[in-house]
């Protein structure tokens, strides 16, 4: 990388962070200091950031338990679909009172139901949350990644080449921006369903997932594209780009080697904001009746349903709520740490 980071040289980094040498791999030997790639530098800086490491651990933990939902619910012996409060086969173990609110302490926390039960139907909150996290997290990651990649490609192309290319890409971006995405979704989903699904067959859940993915992707990449374009526009006038051009580098090489490493910071920050908001968007779609429907567990919808019971059964929002707060906080802090590791000057 001939970026400013590199321009400082390994010497200056070492001067700023003397202990970096001490923590660097001993195997490489002290004489090979210059050989470290920016990626290695970043990793070394990141390892020294305690908050970043903890948050990374928490985020990975969330993804792992979401992935392991079936295993975890097998251990707890519950599933997210049984109505423990209404099912006659569970009549000997009542979990709800006459008003449909959980019996016992803290929303019905017990050995059977670790996080208590849902009001009205008495479904197991632990199982609903594990499966709901799986739905929401992986949908959100897929959507955010897709639209980040699309946004970066379109933004870089527009920003770097400029001129007519930029003009037309800009107009296409404007065109997509003019769609109210959620309204569009509400209007389009029934049409798409009617077109692809037999009226006497149930709409499959994978079909809903795919539809959500595609629509959120197609109507969501514009913010990222705009952001990247503006950063690239400023970058391409910088000396090191000029220098690369003069030395005869191809546009592909310049984009890959000179520009992309320098837009990582804003893209990462944008991505860490995008992911939590996508979780909530998916939940909203479910409320508007075009996203996932009951009984498919969904973290966002669980959170929204809990909000209705905050006064009567606060425990119902406590578990999904605290989990959501921790996850989003850690995800944002992790994003900050990664950014700082890439660009240590920005935090000072």
């Amino acid at each position, binding site marked *: 990388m001939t970026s400013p980071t590199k321009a400082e040289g390994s010497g200056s980094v070492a001067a700023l962070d003397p202990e970096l040498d001490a923590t660097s791999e001993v195997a490489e030997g002290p004489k090979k200091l210059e050989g470290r790639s920016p990626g290695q530098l970043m990793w070394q800086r990141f390892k020294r950031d305690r908050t*970043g490491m903890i948050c990374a651990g928490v985020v990975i933990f969330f993804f792992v338990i979401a992935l392991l939902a079936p295993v975890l619910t097998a251990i707890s012996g519950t599933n997210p679909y049984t109505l423990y409060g209404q099912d006659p086969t569970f009549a000997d173990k009542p979990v709800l009172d006459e008003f449909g609110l959980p019996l016992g302490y803290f929303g019905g926390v017990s050995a059977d139901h670790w996080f208590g039960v849902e009001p009205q139907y008495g479904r197991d909150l632990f199982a609903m949350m594990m499966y709901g996290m799986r739905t929401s997290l992986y949908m959100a990651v897929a959507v955010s990644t897709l639209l980040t990649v699309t946004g970066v490609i379109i933004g870089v192309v527009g920003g770097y080449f400029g001129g007519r290319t930029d003009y037309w890409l800009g107009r296409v971006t404007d065109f997509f921006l003019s769609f109210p995405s959620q309204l569009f979704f509400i209007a389009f989903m029934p049409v798409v369903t009617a077109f692809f699904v037999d009226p006497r067959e149930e709409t499959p859940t994978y079909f809903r997932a795919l539809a959500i993915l595609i629509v959120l992707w197609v109507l969501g990449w514009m913010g990222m594209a705009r952001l990247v374009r503006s950063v690239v526009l400023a970058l391409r006038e910088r000396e090191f780009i000029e220098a690369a051009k003069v030395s005869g580098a191809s546009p592909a090489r310049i984009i890959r080697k000179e520009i992309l490493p320098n837009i990582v910071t804003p893209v990462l920050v944008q991505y860490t904001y995008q992911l939590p908001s996508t979780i909530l968007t998916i939940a909203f779609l479910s409320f508007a009746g075009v996203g996932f429907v009951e009984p498919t567990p969904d973290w966002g919808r669980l959170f929204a349903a809990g909000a209705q019971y905050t006064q009567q059964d606060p425990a119902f929002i406590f578990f999904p709520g605290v989990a959501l707060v921790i996850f989003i906080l850690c995800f944002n802090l992790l994003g900050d740490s990664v950014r700082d590791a890439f660009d240590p000057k920005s935090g000072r």
Partner: protein
Amino acid sequence: MKSLNSRRARAILVAIAAGSLALTGCSENTGGSSGKDSKEDQKKAKEQSQGVAYLDAAASSGPAEEVPGAKSGGTVTVYQESALTHMDPGQIYVSDAGQFSNLVFRGLTNFQEDGKGNVAVVGDLATDSGKASNDNKTWTFTLKDDLKDQNGNPINSADVRHTIERLYAEFIFDGPTFLQSWLSGADYRKALPDGGFGDKHLPDSVLETPDDKTIVFHFDKPRPDLPMALAMPGYSIVPEETDTKEKYDQAPVATGPYKIAEFKAGKSLKLVKNENWDPKTDAVRHQYVDGWNFQFGVTESTQTKRLIADQGDSKNAIQFTGTVDATQIQDVIGDPEVKKRTIQGYAPYVMQLSFNMDRVKNKTVRDAITYAVNSKSLIAGEGGAYGGDVAPNLFAPTLPGYDATYDPYGRLKTPQGNIEKAKELLADVPAAEKKLVFAYANSEAGQKRKVAIEDALGKVGIDVVSKEVDSASYYEQIGKVNNPYDMYITGWGQDWPSPATVVTPVYDGELIGDGQSNYSHINDAKVQELINKAITQQPEEAAKTWDEAHKRILEEVNPAAPLWYVKQFQLYGSNIGGARYSTESSYMDITRVFLKS
């Protein structure tokens, strides 16, 4: 990571966790009991289900009996979630406008209640509840003296004629159609296309107004229910001189104790006293308060919160057709001070799982589903014991002739479904017939119902295919005769206290059509015969015929599985006096309301 150090992050987490714990407290819920109240409601329902008496001139003359302790003055605040859809009497069919109508409009007859569950029909503008010929085909009404509308114009028989004739016009499309079709047949609009605004009027052989005070209806069939039909808000009087056709919906002329002072569409409505209303001519209504202040757009959740808090203006407030928010029911029941301020009873609706009989032809399957459905879990989704009651049959508790013990499918014993019995019935049914499409409104409540239905029917081996239907057009979609669904949850309530307004619209095979309420498409010759017999009979005999028809429908045809009865649970402010549940409207009896101070 210098902008936010980890210690601070930890502090934030701890604060959040501690805050939530403090909020929840750690108290144990051992479960209260609301079973007692449920019994009380059933007792009330028994009162509710008595027959309706037609009262004479003495009972129909004003003024209305004083409400004990009533005081005059003050303004009542009314909370309502959505604004009134119509104010033109001819367009009024839904309950919120019906309540409003009882304050502002008067018809030929009206319902009178004694608070013990007895409902009677008295003359309102008419001197009595109507005089019928022996065969019930001719009905004569005489108007009281000195009747005036809000402008001081006298109300005479020409106004009554105009009120009825304008119902034939194209711009009246949302109101009830009983009277028109009784007079001129199902295709009544052709009989008088311009609605009596031109020179053409209904002939004397149908509607006769021999003098200023007399109105005579001539029907081709006996119509013993006419006094109750005329008490519907949709047949309130529209004075001829001041009718503005379409514009009347925004600015109607009052004939009752209150008139419209200010109306902001979708926002607010202010009613003030109508000085031209004479209490001596009215046997039902009072004019205790000076005015009514309607606030629209207040959600049921907000209404409940405000009324529980009972602060400031909320002390003088009532819920109009809203009910206590399902999630806050416990807060209302748990506090005796709040519970005192509630009105409880049954709403007239029976929720049922209607089968599309064009598709689900095998009665064994329908019976099995009727056994399998879990009423309890569906009611849980509606707010538990105070939101609904298990329905053993298809007649609502508010209907005369209701029998709480008539339970052919053993619903009261096994409210969570009789799975063994259903499995037994389904044992020999081929798999193809067990795959059924269930349509549900795609709203929060609809999705809840879907979960309960799928859960219950899945247990007995029915393959439920759930199809979401846009919730705004749900009834329109399932109301189509050739809809692609096998079953759907529907609700229907009586128009007046007679099974005629339930059995006829919902189970009459002649009324199958797009947009009709015969959602199950039942077309049974025996039921048909009984309906035709019952609608011409006197109430006592008719009750027996209706009962027979009910048993035939539920046991031998089974077009719909009864699920639950909708319950009414309203809250009012502490300064409101005279609040009482109205058996007829199933809401607060709004004519009696006064302010204590």
